[in-house]
């Protein structure tokens, strides 16, 4: 029994963290807010350290790694609020590897030449669909299509987190775009949804840590009535409560990564637990970090909002708490069948 990332996995996570510390600053995040697409030259740089091809099979020039490494790296991406669609691209890559390995997309994703995005059944919007080179779409009736975004009608939306470039996607399924249907497609879509939920959980862990760090730093330097606000127990306890949530969410997310990487029978339930725990940690982190900052945290000018808004968006994306609680309950109490392709 061993619940810890391997040295290689930790190294990967830290390499990405260091890279993003230098290359995904909050000024750059604000630039992503202002741009039409959040995808920048950073995507190519991430490719060089293996990140964009993390789950791409080795035959297609990827690293061929698993959900364990993916979640380790996504934690670092969450810490930086990386605006590129790393998770969506990994979910798309998983489906492409299974049903369209020879289409050439995987090599390009691994090389950082292409951006892929995904739209699963029940998901209302795709991220970066306009900037993506390829879109993998799962339909309500369980088909998987590989689509050129230029052939779709995209209706751009405005997320509270302006770096999430969302659009509604209308497309006409055609025999040329269809890559899978039937039980194999349904199972793959369910697994893709689980990868998405796990990835969101990992991103939320990183976001939680970032907001906690910001609030701790602020509490150590803000003085009121002649004392540092961090000496007040009410402030201390707000932050201690966030750390408790975070420290208990992390092993839950790690276990889900372990289960999903091995396709264990409990994987879906484990992933749902991960999303619930990480979502709650991030929710509390956002609220308490805002409270500790006072009015300055309530401004657009302060960087806290960049992380809070991402946390809110991700809390609801890939299945909200209600959806995942229902899945766990159905599994534990056995009185309702777990939906195979979840509704988001």
């Amino acid at each position, binding site marked *: 029994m061993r619940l810890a990332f391997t040295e290689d996995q930790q190294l990967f996570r830290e390499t990405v963290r260091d890279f993003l510390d230098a290359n995904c600053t909050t000024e750059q995040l604000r630039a992503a807010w202002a741009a039409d697409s959040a995808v920048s030259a950073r995507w190519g740089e991430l490719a060089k350290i293996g990140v964009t091809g993390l789950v791409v099979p080795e035959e297609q020039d990827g690293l061929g790694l698993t959900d364990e490494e993916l979640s380790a790296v996504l934690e670092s991406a969450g810490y930086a609020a990386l605006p590129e669609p790393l998770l969506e691209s990994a979910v798309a890559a998983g489906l492409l590897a299974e049903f369209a390995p020879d289409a050439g997309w995987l090599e390009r994703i691994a090389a950082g030449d292409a951006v892929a995005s995904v739209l699963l059944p029940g998901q209302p919007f795709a991220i970066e669909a306009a900037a993506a080179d390829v879109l993998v779409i799962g339909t309500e009736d369980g088909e998987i299509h590989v689509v050129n975004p230029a052939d779709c009608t995209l209706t751009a939306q405005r997320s509270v987190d302006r770096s999430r470039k969302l659009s509604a996607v209308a497309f006409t399924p055609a025999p040329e775009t269809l890559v899978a249907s039937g039980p194999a497609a349904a199972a793959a879509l369910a697994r893709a949804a689980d990868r998405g939920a796990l990835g969101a959980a990992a991103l939320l862990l990183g976001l939680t840590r970032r907001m906690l760090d910001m609030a*701790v730093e602020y509490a150590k330097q803000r003085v009121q009535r002649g004392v540092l606000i961090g000496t007040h*127990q009410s402030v201390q306890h707000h932050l201690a409560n966030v750390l408790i949530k975070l420290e208990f969410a992390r092993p839950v997310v790690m276990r889900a990564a372990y289960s999903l990487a091995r396709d264990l029978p409990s994987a879906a339930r484990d992933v749902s637990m991960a999303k619930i725990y990480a979502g709650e940690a991030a929710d509390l982190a956002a609220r308490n970090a805002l409270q500790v900052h006072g009015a300055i945290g309530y401004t657009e000018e302060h960087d806290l909002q960049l992380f809070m808004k991402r946390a809110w968006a991700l809390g609801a994306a890939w299945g909200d708490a209600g959806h995942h609680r229902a899945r766990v309950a159905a599994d534990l109490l056995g009185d309702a069948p777990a939906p195979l392709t979840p509704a988001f």
Partner: protein
Amino acid sequence: MDLEFSPKEQEFRQEVRSWLAANVPATPLPSMDTEEGFRLHQEWEKKLFDARWAVVSWPKAYGGREAGLTEWLIFEEEYYRAGAPGRVSQNGIFLFAPTVFEFGSKEQQDRYLPKMASGEEIWVQGWSEPEAGSDLANVRSRADRDDERGGWVLNGQKIWSSRGTYGHRLFGLFRTDPESKRHHGLTYFMVDLASAGVTVRPIPQLDGEPGFAEVFLDDVFVPDADVLGGPGEGWKIMIATTGSERGLNLRSPGRFLAPADRLLELYKERGNGDQVLRDAAVQAWMDAEAYRLFTFGTVTKLLDGGQIGADSSINKVFWSQMDVELHATALKLLGGYGELDEGSPDAVDGARWLDGFLFALGGPIYAGTNEIQRNTIAERILGLPRAK
């Protein structure tokens, strides 16, 4: 990561499981906080000890099996799953023993540990005093040097000592340097509660039973042989004991997994499709599972040569809150039957949920209150400036 148990560990689990299946009393023992119950729990400890299940992680020489941490976790899971009796010796074997192994002399280890493991001597924790609760450094009970007899004369008062009513020996802090302040000048003593000058006054707890006691010391002589570590080293050694209490030892995941599983059963029987209670029951189960995973992480860290340290405060807040929520949910599921105490003809399961609820309510208070734990987390882990 590797979340499987090895074949050897699985074999160990089977062995524990079959022994428990054959030996756990069919009807629950009376409460250990009654005279008869205390004695029966001691007998149960003896039975465990004779089969070498009392202290699985201890050295073989003292009746253990030298089980590793993972095996200890397995043992605990099986123990509570089997519905085996609560451990009347727990404050000795789980909290005090690690300190005796670390700081005690060989002579002290030989003298205390075997009887502690067999349940013959039940140890009682003597930290708190009327003026020293959260502020433990305010200990006033004192010990004066008696060179003639080669020991110390103890005077003062301890309070809230769990199992003090029927227990045999107390470990606690006493001030040996009358000039000293706060955590200086304190010494760690072990006191035979049958000594002349000791008066024990039982205190009924929330459940009406004398689960803890007040201990008055009036010129109680304690020989040098019953001092742990050197004079003045008490605080440092005490920190080691309370670390075990909050850290891994006192509340193994097994203690919560078993009631969490039973809670789901209770929901299936009595939930009537109530969505609020359904969510609460599932939350309790998930928390028990999260606690198990968190503990796996802690065990991994320890096996890699790391230490627990202030992290134990994170642990303590979580399990104590979880325990309260779990039992509160059970009582809600019982509806009008929830208030029925032991002895009511219609009490469900011998009123064990109510008993568990009342027990759980102490968790946020003992072993350092949860407010104190949050102070520790904020200052020692997050590095916030010290509260004034």
